[in-house]
């Protein structure tokens, strides 16, 4: 089973990296950029095929380790 996890910064958390990317893109001549936010994308290959059980497990993984809930949100998706 392939799980896809997105980890994004919470709305009001400063994203220095996103800001610099936005500036660089503008400097490179790309117009019309309102904002850039950088997050993480994690792919996990899991044994088994019980999607419900896997979803529970993946949420736990995010809470325990993968995301820092003080500043980040996460979402889990299974193919």
């Amino acid at each position, binding site marked *: 089973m392939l799980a896809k996890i997105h980890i994004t910064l919470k709305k*009001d*958390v*400063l994203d*220095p990296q996103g800001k610099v990317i936005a500036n660089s893109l503008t400097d490179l001549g790309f117009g019309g950029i309102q904002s850039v936010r950088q997050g993480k994308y994690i792919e996990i290959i899991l044994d088994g095929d019980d999607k419900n059980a896997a979803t529970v497990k993946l949420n736990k993984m995010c809470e325990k380790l993968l995301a*820092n809930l003080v500043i980040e949100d996460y979402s889990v998706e299974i193919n």
Partner: protein
Amino acid sequence: MKSHVIVFPGSNCDRDVAVAIEKISGSAPEMIWHKNTSIEHSDLIIVPGGFSYGDYLRCGAIASTSPIMHEVVQKAKAGVPVIGICNGFQILIETSLLDGALIRNNSLSFICRDIHIKAENSTSIFTKNNIIAKMPIAHNEGNYFASTETLKKIKDHDQIAFRYCDEHGVVNEQANPNGSMENIAGILNDTKNVLGLMPHPERAIEINLGGDDGKHIFESVLN
């Protein structure tokens, strides 16, 4: 005086801090491997700097889940003094012993240089020497961030330990090396027995290394 230094596989300031403590207190700390689950009586626990797990995923995240950190959290809650330096600060944040977050430096680059810090709180055991001190920083993610409520809370409870300042103690934007909110360089927990700071006092313990202001921070706990 019994002190302990936690060692993760990628710690690299563990020796430096052990040398500093021995030099200042006269007795060497015990080094505790991260897979251990308990620490006996301790007067001071140090979570040292380095790249505990390569800083992969997020600095300090993986280390914060190690068996020994569970014990450190228990000890901290029981009142044992704990200092997290640099990566150690990041680890303490990830365990939630300390509030807020440490994000990428606003320059997006690693910064290694001398900075000055000023003690804000003068009542904690770590800050009673009330100093303006010069010492190095060396980090990629030392940009302190907290939500508006959290920031208010740590201010209301006098939890800001150190702020970045210039050599005269003036806290301003030029003296802020990494974009930290309100120039915060170190914070305390609400019971003031846990300190996290980004600068490296253990690298500033003798003139030959460029200064010995770092001694004050250890001296105020060790004596």
